[in-house]
């Protein structure tokens, strides 16, 4: 697929600049765009159960957001070190940035010493193909340093820094994500209770998200390097997914992270318990095998997430949906509105 197939126009102002609660809405009061083979419908997120059927299964990500943006200093001066992924033994993949609105890359040499959140650290090597990301090795306890000096990662379009609690979802249980698994943010106790009443069940995985991927840079979308993320699909979830599919229900992923985790744990048309790192890139030439639908935010032009959406909803239908979303002034980004895409 050519890079240009992922281009579209979105007015800059259609970006959520903070949590829905700051716009005077409940978390579940944001808008829901529903895309099915029958077309596109507009609703509020609270009405999600109306668009699902008894026997459907929602799979959610239980990863919680870390205060992963650390104040740092070194040869390039004062900078932000946004931690993306914990590789174990003090080694992290991280994104050094000037500030929330100004990305890197910053100039470093392999082995160079820096200090982040008061801990000594070394810049080890850039991530192959993505030179804005570096492997960084820390001496000391990164998790506690993060809770002492870190803040949630945010970007330039977020005006007033939200608190860590704004970045957690009702499912957040296992700390580890650099950024909020945001498709789960609008879920509330009443939505969950309405889903249960409707006969829709839930199951869970864990996938710790890394920092946001930027635009696809390669001419062929398939050539874009993605970085791997840690995930775990429990046996009970694998069973629930397989049972749902064999009894004719639909499996709906809450977030692109869930699609990645489930599809990474799939062999021979069935999901099995699995744990490890995955950089599976779902796109039209690598279609989904397990997931029938996806609940997700609205994604920027020329991103790998948009390629995943094309793989699930079909390129034509997703392009139509995005035209609708712009016309109806939906809001983009992690605190924005939500899109439900159902294949069948």
């Amino acid at each position: 697929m050519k890079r240009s197939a992922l281009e579209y126009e979105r007015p800059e102002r259609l970006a959520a600049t903070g949590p829905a609660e700051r716009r005077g809405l409940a978390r579940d009061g944001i808008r829901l765009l529903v895309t099915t083979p029958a077309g596109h419908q507009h609703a509020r997120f609270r009405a999600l159960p109306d668009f699902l059927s008894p026997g459907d299964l929602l799979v959610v990500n239980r990863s919680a957001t870390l205060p992963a943006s650390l104040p740092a200093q070194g040869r390039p001066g004062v900078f932000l070190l946004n931690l993306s992924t914990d590789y174990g033994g003090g080694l992290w993949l991280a994104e050094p940035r000037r500030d929330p609105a100004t990305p890197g890359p910053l100039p470093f040499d392999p082995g160079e010493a820096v200090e982040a959140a008061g801990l000594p650290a070394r810049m080890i090597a850039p991530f192959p193909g993505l030179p804005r990301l570096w492997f960084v090795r820390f001496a000391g306890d990164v998790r506690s340093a993060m809770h002492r000096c870190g803040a949630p990662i945010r970007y330039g379009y977020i005006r007033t820094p939200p608190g860590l609690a704004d970045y957690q979802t009702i499912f957040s249980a296992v700390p580890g994500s650099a950024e909020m698994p945001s498709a789960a943010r609008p879920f509330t106790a009443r939505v969950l209770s309405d889903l249960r009443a409707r006969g829709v069940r839930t199951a869970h995985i864990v996938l710790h998200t890394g920092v946001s991927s930027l635009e696809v840079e390669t001419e062929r979308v398939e050539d874009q390097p993605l970085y791997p993320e840690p995930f775990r699909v429990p046996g009970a979830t694998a069973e629930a997914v397989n049972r749902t599919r064999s009894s004719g229900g639909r499996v709906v992923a809450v977030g692109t992270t869930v699609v990645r985790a489930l599809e990474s744990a799939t062999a021979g048309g069935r999901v099995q318990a699995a744990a490890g790192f995955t950089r599976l890139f779902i796109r039209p030439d690598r279609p989904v095998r397990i997931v029938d639908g996806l609940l997700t935010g609205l994604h920027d032009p020329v991103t790998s997430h948009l390629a995943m959406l094309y793989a699930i909803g079909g390129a034509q239908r997703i392009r139509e949906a995005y035209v609708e979303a712009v016309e109806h002034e939906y809001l983009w980004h992690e605190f924005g509105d939500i899109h439900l895409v159902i294949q069948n």
Partner: protein
Amino acid sequence: MTRTTLITGASKGLGRTLASFLAAQGDELILTARGGAALEKTAADLQRTGANVRALPGDVADPDHRKALVAAAAEKGGLDLLINNASTLGPSPLPDLIDLPAAEIRRILEVNLVAPLELVRIALPVLKSSGGLVINLSSDAALGGYEGWGGYGASKAGLDLVSLTLANELRPVGVAVVSVDPGDMNTEMHQAAYPDEDISDRPEPEATLPFWAWLFGQDPADVSGRRFQAQSEQWLVSS
């Protein structure tokens, strides 16, 4: 936590990439390769960045050299990582297996199969004392039956079975063994396999760094006995 790491075939290609990656993380490195000049240069480059590197040039097929490598690890008090990366492809261009002289296949097996096994055998005390991880570099040629790759492929298929068997046998003493297929890379060895081709479209050895970063962060017991593809989409542990 400073690891002591022994890398064979460390002067060029993947071995050199791994040496740089681990040196930057503060590992104490023992490096070996046959080409003394290239090895000294790699070691000197790393030492300039402040790395703790000992270069011992020699042939891993030579039993005395293997003893010297393990003695160097014993001086450090243990061995956390043994990376059996040195390999020989045999003659270039690659002859069909039926035309591969017995002396050549013996040499391939000595370097690619016997040497890694012997290194584990004599390093076992230092591997045990560190709860070490042995990484044997394999190849998709171990599975493929590709024309011309029979000698090298047979040695790597043998090495895969050596890895799995050692993993099972050494689990009770706390030593882990994995086999890793790094995938096609733009290296001198790959060029020797395709002497007339432009192989610059193959990924550089650095493309495998995310995998190594992941592997080195795992509890060795969780990965022992597994065979990984460094360039694949996912790396799984027993769940």
